[in-house]
């Protein structure tokens, strides 16, 4: 039987020759990731009453959400997590300051094509950019994985996205995925595995592909897989941890639906408050006043995002009415950005640089919004109250749009910055 990548990975992980969509399988987990919510997982794990975790090598814990600790309760939670990893001998522990879990997993070489990965974070789908089946789960499911190494899955149907055409200057993968979500809706991929292919995807850097796999979760995707290629192999050569197999869909694999998008003339896109599928071209919003601009997150806090933003911000000054907050996705992104001079450009332009981590993305610290304020942000969610007060308005856009808007103090088409 012909199969998609998702079906092949779930078949391999559950020890079967093949699986059909709709079938429920009990699969062996290759990697289990948690972050600050390890506290909740460990509480539940204690109730299951196990002496040991199933495999301490396959558990990775990264503190990233509220780092460094923003309150005493957070500090106490972090302390509990440090005690937990010591007790259970979890060596793959990355303490505050290392970066956002999804970025750290890839940089440290934990992600390979063909793996079955679960994480107690919905954007675990990011690892799909490496050809893995990676998905978010809750704390109880994770406690069960820690205890047994297994989890049940319903084999999803696969949606195919064939994306072709060349991106014009200052149009990025963020614009493409927002555009797609605008078309298919906030639940357009719910319960489905997505596969992205076509020449636009092939020509994208790994940083850009990770944006697609990350943000696709906002359409409900269970997994957001990009077939691996030489770029992935070259990346992994530098970080090799384990051997792996590249997995591809069969020619005549069955997709629930395939979409074709020619993105040749796509404009930069904005997801407007407070629905992710309320997507409009930036030209419809130019002039909308903003109080804050955020460049960062697991979606768009990588080196490539900093490169495009600094290209726009070089020798410019941020509007006096705007606070611009820059959050590197990881320590290594931060270091590279210093070497390349991006951080200097941001600082001179008037931006605030905070430590690697989730930063203001989830509205807890490092730039919380007041009622009635607006933000343009390269993060992935614009829900009511996500970044602070429930009366704050969140516009999502690409790093280029964030940088251009920060200069003008209003939503701005980055293409207007091309001299």
């Amino acid at each position, binding site marked *: 039987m012909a199969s998609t990548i998702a079906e092949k990975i779930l078949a391999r992980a559950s020890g079967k020759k093949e699986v059909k969509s709709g079938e429920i399988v009990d699969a062996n987990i290759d990697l289990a990731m948690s972050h600050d*919510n390890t506290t909740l997982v460990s509480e539940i794990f204690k109730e299951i009453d196990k002496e040991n975790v199933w495999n301490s090598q396959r558990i990775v814990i990264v503190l990233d959400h509220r780092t460094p600790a923003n309150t005493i309760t957070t500090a106490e939670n972090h302390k509990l997590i440090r005690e937990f990893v010591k007790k259970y001998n979890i060596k793959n522990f990355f303490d505050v300051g290392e970066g956002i879990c999804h970025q750290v997993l890839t940089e440290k070489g934990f992600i390979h094509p063909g793996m079955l990965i679960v994480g*107690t974070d919905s954007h675990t789908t990011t690892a799909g950019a490496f050809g893995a089946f990676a998905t978010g789960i*809750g704390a109880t*499911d994770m406690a069960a994985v820690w*205890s047994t190494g297994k989890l049940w899955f319903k084999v999803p149907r696969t949606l195919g996205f064939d994306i072709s055409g060349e991106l014009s200057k200052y149009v990025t993968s963020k614009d493409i995925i927002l555009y797609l979500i605008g078309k298919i809706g906030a639940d357009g991929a719910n319960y489905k595995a997505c596969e992205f292919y076509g020449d636009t995807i092939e020509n994208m850097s790994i940083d850009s592909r990770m944006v697609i796999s990350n943000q696709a979760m906002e359409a409900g995707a*269970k997994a957001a897989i990009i077939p691996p290629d030489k770029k992935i192999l070259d990346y992994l050569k530098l970080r090799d941890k384990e051997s792996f197999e590249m997995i591809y869909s069969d020619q005549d694999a069955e997709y629930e639906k395939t979409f074709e998008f020619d993105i040749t003339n796509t404009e930069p896109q904005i997801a407007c408050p407070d629905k992710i599928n309320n997507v409009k071209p930036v030209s419809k919003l130019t002039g909308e006043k903003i109080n804050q601009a955020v460049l960062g997150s697991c979606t768009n806090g990588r080196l490539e995002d900093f490169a495009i933003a600094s290209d726009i911000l070089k020798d410019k000054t941020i509007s006096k009415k705007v606070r611009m907050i820059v959050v590197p996705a990881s320590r290594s992104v931060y270091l590279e950005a210093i070497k390349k001079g991006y951080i200097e450009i941001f600082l001179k332009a008037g931006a605030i640089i905070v430590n690697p981590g989730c930063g203001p993305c989830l509205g807890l610290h490092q730039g919380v919004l007041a009622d009635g304020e607006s933000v343009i942000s390269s993060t992935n969610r614009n829900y009511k109250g996500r970044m602070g007060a429930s009366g704050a308005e969140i516009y999502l856009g690409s790093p280029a749009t964030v940088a251009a808007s920060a200069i003008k103090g209003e939503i701005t088409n980055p293409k207007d910055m091309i001299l």
Partner: protein
Amino acid sequence: MILKGKAIKYGNDINTDVIIPGRYLNFVKPEELAPHAMENLDPDFFSKFTKGDVIVAGQNFGCGSSREQAAMCLKYAGVGAIVAKSFARIFYRNAINQGLPVIESSEAVDATDNKDVLLIDLDKELIKNVTKNLRFTMQPVPEFLQGIITAGGLVPWLQEKSHS
């Protein structure tokens, strides 16, 4: 399992950030979370709610983050069940793991108004709108998931399994 309660109706795409805002995620105890349930959307939710009430909602209920606190806070606020047109997948798993019945039925959602009384028979897979005297079917739930719900969640289910 048979449940009865009055409907509290919401729209589509009710996300986890409005069910339980990020600022409460440091809490791991259900009793600390429950008073903040639905705070960003419906600040009076907890006070107007009677134990056993049923949330009735449109498509994609629980979209967004993987935070299990979203299912926990609703369960411990006393929500008897959630009937929606569809659920976001992580929330669906979390609710079952917490022993909170999640039921898909577009017809029941369309026909139910705020405060209607619903009677839900999980074994017979039937929903009755008592106020309007209407009956609906629901999407079947696989047997082992029903077992998890009946046991009160994944942890008690695993404990039962290891003792039997």
